[in-house]
């Protein structure tokens, strides 16, 4: 563990070097998060992967050309320019493969990535033979080393990040259209091809400055992971971009600090791992698409449907008793045996017990003597509504969709839970049953007692 005062110095950014690295990494993470979101929504998340590998021959070529004209080959601007040129060429190659051959996006990316990289490797093989000493650093170039960042690198990053964010702000509307409906954008006369190239150009900008700072794999991660994490939190573009920028900047800063605090933790890798943790948290708890909220919503819906099935089963059982004992049309609150309920749907005894207990806790049913249950006043209100929805839909299907009465039950079984009040009003007016506004339509099925050996007339599927 680092000593407390060292830790404090790092965390409060008192060291010039730490401050430089953390701030530059955070800016890079922010810009990568913004542009990464557009790439993710354009379904081109791996474009950054392909382009960052496509920069390698550019680095080699720039070095060779600079040496030929007598400029210092290893100067950063020269190498970055070369990288940017082949990066853009790579983007062009991907678009060309997609445009002129029947190969798909994935193959275009894989081919560009590996062939450009192969050309770069071959070029480096030659460069190593030309005055070896000056070329020594070129290979480590593709790994990058955050710790050795200079002030000039930091300014480069800040400039590139600013450029990307401003470009995204100016072209926000166009990019949004491109991401969500490229076909529509084209139909509206937007230059989709040009916009795609601009987007790829911004990615190349980030990749090229990021390569130097965090290395090739890690810049790919910065382009993908924060955006993918942000996607779990919202379904709207502007919030997603903000969250992605935030996650990118935060994980970059945290990763850089952790790397400064502990020995032998490479900063680039720590930044990726920090982003990965943010991704895992987002995937688990993200409000819009996270696994846990989704599961909770699903469980709530399932429970509501179970309860509504119970209420309908009880109501229909009562209806049956009322017909049989000729009490008249309105079912009374009478006791229903558990075994009777069990036969009405294909539910397991244990799950029916659980459903009944939950309904009891919500005050919808209450126990009567000897394993019998009875609807409470509240339960009856709910039951009437559920049965009414079910039967309105059945009658609608029979009347307007010309379905046989024997075929409508299963369909209504699914729809009864989600009918909105407006829908019900519309159904009522369609079926002209305003006269019996609160009444429950009679079941279109012939009412018969569920026998112990045959299947109940109710649907056997659980919606």
């Amino acid at each position: 563990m680092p000593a407390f005062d060292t830790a404090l110095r790092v965390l409060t950014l008192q060291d010039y070097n730490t401050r430089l690295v953390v701030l530059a990494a955070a800016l890079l993470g922010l810009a990568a998060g913004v542009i990464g979101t557009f790439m993710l929504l354009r379904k081109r998340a791996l474009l950054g992967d392909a382009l960052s590998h496509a920069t390698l021959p550019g680095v080699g070529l720039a070095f060779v050309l600079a040496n030929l004209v007598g400029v210092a080959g290893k100067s950063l601007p020269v190498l970055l320019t070369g990288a940017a040129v082949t990066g853009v060429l790579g983007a062009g190659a991907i678009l060309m493969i997609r445009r002129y051959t029947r190969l798909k996006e994935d193959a275009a990316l894989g081919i560009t990535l590996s062939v450009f990289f192969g050309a770069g490797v071959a070029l480096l093989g030659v460069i190593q033979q030309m005055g070896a000493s000056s070329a020594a650093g070129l290979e480590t170039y593709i790994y990058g080393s955050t710790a050795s960042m200079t002030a000039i690198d930091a300014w480069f990053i800040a400039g590139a990040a600013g450029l990307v964010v401003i470009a995204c702000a100016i072209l926000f509307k166009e990019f949004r259209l491109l991401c969500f409906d490229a076909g529509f954008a084209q139909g509206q006369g937007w230059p989709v091809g040009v916009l795609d190239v601009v987007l790829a150009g911004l990615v190349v900008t980030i990749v090229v400055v990021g390569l130097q700072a965090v290395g090739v794999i890690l810049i790919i991660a910065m382009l993908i992971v924060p955006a993918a994490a942000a996607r779990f939190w919202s379904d709207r573009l502007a919030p997603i971009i903000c969250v992605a920028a935030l996650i990118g900047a935060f994980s970059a800063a945290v990763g850089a600090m952790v790397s400064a605090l502990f020995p032998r933790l490479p900063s680039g890798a720590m930044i990726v791992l920090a982003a990965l943790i943010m991704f895992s948290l987002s995937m688990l708890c993200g409000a819009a698409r996270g696994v846990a909220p989704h599961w909770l919503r699903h469980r709530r819906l399932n429970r509501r449907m179970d309860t509504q099935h119970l209420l309908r089963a009880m109501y229909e059982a009562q209806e049956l008793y009322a017909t049989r004992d000729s009490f008249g049309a309105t079912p009374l609150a009478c006791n229903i045996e558990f075994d009777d309920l069990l036969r009405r749907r294909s539910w397991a005894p244990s799950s029916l017990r659980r459903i009944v207990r939950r309904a009891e806790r919500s005050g919808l049913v209450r126990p009567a003597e000897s394993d019998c249950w009875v609807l409470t006043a509240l339960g009856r209100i709910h039951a009437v509504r559920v049965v009414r929805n079910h039967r309105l839909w059945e009658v609608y299907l029979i009347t307007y969709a010309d379905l046989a009465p024997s075929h409508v039950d299963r369909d209504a079984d699914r729809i009864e839970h989600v009918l909105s009040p407006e829908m019900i009003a519309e159904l009522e007016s369609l079926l002209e049953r305003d006269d019996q506004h609160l009444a429950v339509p009679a079941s279109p099925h012939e009412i018969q007692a569920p026998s112990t050996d045959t299947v109940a007339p109710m649907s056997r599927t659980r919606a």
Partner: protein
Amino acid sequence: MWHALAGWDAYLDGWIVVVGMLCAMACALPGCFLVLRRMSMMGDAISHAVLPGLAVAFIVSGKLTSAPMFIGAVVAGVLTALFTEWVRGYGKVDEGASMGVVFTGLFALGLVFIAQAADQVHLDANCVLYGAIEFTPLDTVSLAGQAVPRVALTLASILLLNLVFVVLFYKELKISSFDPALATTMGVNARAMHYLLMTLTAVTAVASFEAVGSILVVALLIAPPAAAYLLTDRLPVMLGLSLVIGASAAVLGHAGALALPAAFGYGSTSTAGMIAVAAGVLLILAALFGPRHGVISSIVHRRRTRSSVNAGS
């Protein structure tokens, strides 16, 4: 330029070309199905994500021997496929993005492992990245009295394994690649085929690292099958063509590595890099001159259609 090829050494250059051809052909078989399933980037993801597998295998076994490292790498490769499927399935993240999240994460983990074990080991990341096909003929084992490069033997057995796999599961692979839903209704387990193919890809990629390195293996997995895909509409023809194109790329690549720098007065360059470039060139040729889907033939076809329409009207 051609004088560089005059110094062709029958043993060294011969074996380099043989290793390259074996590697290209072993990669082409699973590569065809990756291209057809639109999962080309899986090769890239797997070949990056094996790093933690290599590191863990080394830390556990303490040796730089091939067997544990091979197993570690293959396990990591299969885990990549598994995690990608999870993130895609549970998180509903787009395929490419879920791949990107998983492989960059695993690669970063691998970097941390290596940095932590740095004083025990010089696990050379460069070796994984670039491979060293030029040195493979020097590491030989004896087979029936003949000195055969170890890598050639490994790659030959991988090629054989892939051939057996493709022949045995031809029907299942074909149907689950073209129509997974139909495959499921016909009783073919599409999911099992997916993971089998992923395992095979991982095994092939790891076996090829030593020869061509982790990025260039992507070139051999994708470019020859993609070129073959542009030339034919039939799967058996595509498989055969991809083998031929891969092998040609290996020959052309090594020749190019010797001859091309010589034209500018330098010694030979990386054979693996040039094999990738050769595969790319072959792909461009296939894209331009392919019989039905080629750029030129479709221009000719369009022109002919237009003139016949004009003549008819």
